[in-house]
C-alpha cells in the first residue's frame, strides 16, 4: 500500500493483513562535492522501496520518505519517529536507509542499512535485475520478523 487516500481506505478495512510499515530515511547532503552521491542514493532508495511495495502490496504500507540534512540530530529524530510512528500500531516497522549512521540508533522496529548503488546510468533491464537482487538481500530480514 502507498500513503495515498485510496490505499488507506483498503488499509483501514484490512488492518489485520497489512501489518508492516516501511519507512525510507533519506539523507539530503548539501555540500557541493557530495550532492551527486546523495541524489543517487536517494534515487536508489526510492526505487527500491517502491519495488518492495509492488511486490508486497498487500502486506506493507510504504510511508512517504523522511528526509533530513547534515545538521539534523539523528538521536532526536530517531526517538521522535519511534514514538510517533508507534501510534499507528503496525506490528512490524522497518526503516530503510543508505546512511550508516542509523544502524547505531535505538529505534522501535528494525533498521535496514543498504549500500547505495548508482542506478541512473543503467538500462531499465539491468536496473530491474539489481533491484531484484537487493530485494533478495533484504527479504530474509522481513521473513524473519514475519514468521516470529
Amino acid at each position, binding site marked *: 500500500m502507498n500513503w495515498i487516500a485510496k490505499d488507506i481506505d483498503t488499509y483501514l478495512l484490512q488492518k489485520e*493483513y497489512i501489518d508492516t510499515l516501511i519507512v525510507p530515511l533519506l539523507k539530503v547532503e548539501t555540500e557541493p562535492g557530495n550532492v551527486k552521491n546523495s541524489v543517487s542514493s536517494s534515487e536508489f532508495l526510492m526505487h527500491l522501496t517502491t519495488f518492495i511495495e509492488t*511486490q508486497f*502490496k*498487500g502486506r506493507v504500507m510504504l510511508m512517504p520518505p523522511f528526509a533530513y540534512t547534515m545538521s539534523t540530530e539523528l538521536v532526536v529524530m530517531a526517538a521522535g519517529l519511534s514514538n510517533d510512528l508507534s501510534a499507528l500500531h503496525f506490528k512490524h516497522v522497518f526503516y530503510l536507509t543508505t546512511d550508516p549512521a542509523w544502524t547505531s540508533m535505538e529505534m522501535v522496529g528494525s533498521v535496514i542499512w543498504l549500500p547505495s548503488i548508482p542506478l541512473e546510468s543503467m538500462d531499465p533491464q539491468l536496473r530491474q535485475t539489481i533491484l531484484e537482487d537487493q530485494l533478495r538481500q533484504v527479504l530474509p530480514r522481513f521473513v524473519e520478523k514475519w514468521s516470529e
Partner: protein
Amino acid sequence: MSNKVSRRQFLSYTLMGVGGFMASGMLMPMVRFAIDPVLQQSGGGDFIPTSQKVDDLTEIPVRVDFTIKDRKDAWYYSDVSNTAWVYKNGDTIIALSPVCKHLGCTVNWGGDETHPDQFFCPCHAGRYMKNGDNVKGTPPTGPLDEYEVKVEGGLLYIGKTVSNTLV
C-alpha cells in the same frame, strides 16, 4: 413589383434565423455528447511486444517481463514494468497476471517449497492452481486474471487483462 420585403416579413425572417442559430447552438453539443461513446476510440487493442519466443514456451509457467511505454496518468507519463506468468496448455498460450486477488501482492510460481506446482503469494501464503484457480482455505477470494495474448513473428504479445476464463 411584389419582391419588396415588407417590414413584417423582414422581422419574421430575422427572428427565425437568429432563433434557429441559437437553438442549434444549444442542440449541437447535446447531440455530440449523446453520440460520444460511439466515437470513442477503444484503447483495448493495444498489444505490447515481449522478448519471449513462443517456441521456447513449455507447460511450466515462466516469468515474462514487459514494459508499457508512456502510460498516461493525468499529465504524468511513465513507463510501467509488468510481468506475466506464461505457459502452454496444449497449443494455446496462457498468460496469467501475477497480481494476487487478495490485496495485490505479486505471486510467484513454485514460491512455496511444499507446493512446487502452484502459484504462491508470499504476503499471506495465498495459493493458486496452475490455471489460476485460488486454493480454498487460503486468503485469495478469486482466480488470477488472464492477459489477452497474440503471436506475431514468433514473439509473444500481451494485451489487456481479462477475468480468468479457465476456471
